[in-house]
């Protein structure tokens, strides 16, 4: 069964304190590992897609990496505006094409 687990559930960082969010997964045929940012009361905002182990992508203070079992979202020198819930989602080739399996998210709070 395809599964996605995110940790920690919540993370509080001081501004400038770098850290990483984890997304571990089991899948029958990876069709993409997706990271989204979700602000309260809004829809998820697409950040990155990773397709194969060893792949890395960066955007401003965020860097996503992928291994065969997990993905990390590294946040370098975060700012208060990075506070949000970060969702990881798995695209599986073993089920309906295009279906995503979402984790429950990591709620990140960055305080000044």
């Amino acid at each position: 069964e395809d599964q996605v687990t995110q940790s920690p559930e919540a993370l509080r960082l001081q501004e400038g304190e770098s850290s990483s969010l984890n997304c571990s997964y089991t899948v029958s045929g990876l069709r993409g590992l997706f990271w989204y940012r979700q602000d309260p009361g809004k829809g998820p905002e697409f950040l990155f897609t990773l397709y194969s182990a060893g792949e890395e992508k960066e955007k401003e203070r965020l860097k996503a990496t992928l291994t065969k079992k997990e993905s990390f979202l590294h946040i370098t020198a975060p700012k208060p505006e990075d506070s949000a819930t970060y969702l990881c989602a798995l695209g599986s080739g073993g089920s309906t094409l295009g279906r995503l399996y979402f984790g429950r998210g990591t709620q990140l709070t960055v305080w000044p």
Partner: protein
Amino acid sequence: DAMVIQNPRYQVTQFGKPVTLSCSQTLNHNVMYWYQQKSSQAPKLLFHYYDKDFNNEADTPDNFQSRRPNTSFCFLDIRSPGLGDAAMYLCATSKEEPGGTQYFGPGTRLLVL
């Protein structure tokens, strides 16, 4: 800018009173999705369309229906809302391809009184 639009952003309805939520897109994607998201939970897929082909998730209650009259628009109908249906409803679109990225609208917050 190409985007996914949802209306209304907030919807208040009464217990048992039918309600319709709408989604439109300018991305020209042929796949559209409806998700339900409750507080601090992962988005839960209700159903999706490949063009006009409707795909219902096995655990989606019969109370939830959907219509897609054309490529750009998709509607979520809740026939008899219960208190447990209060949630954020998210519409998303993607191209029909393996690993296609889903792009989400801003969501509609539904409150059932």
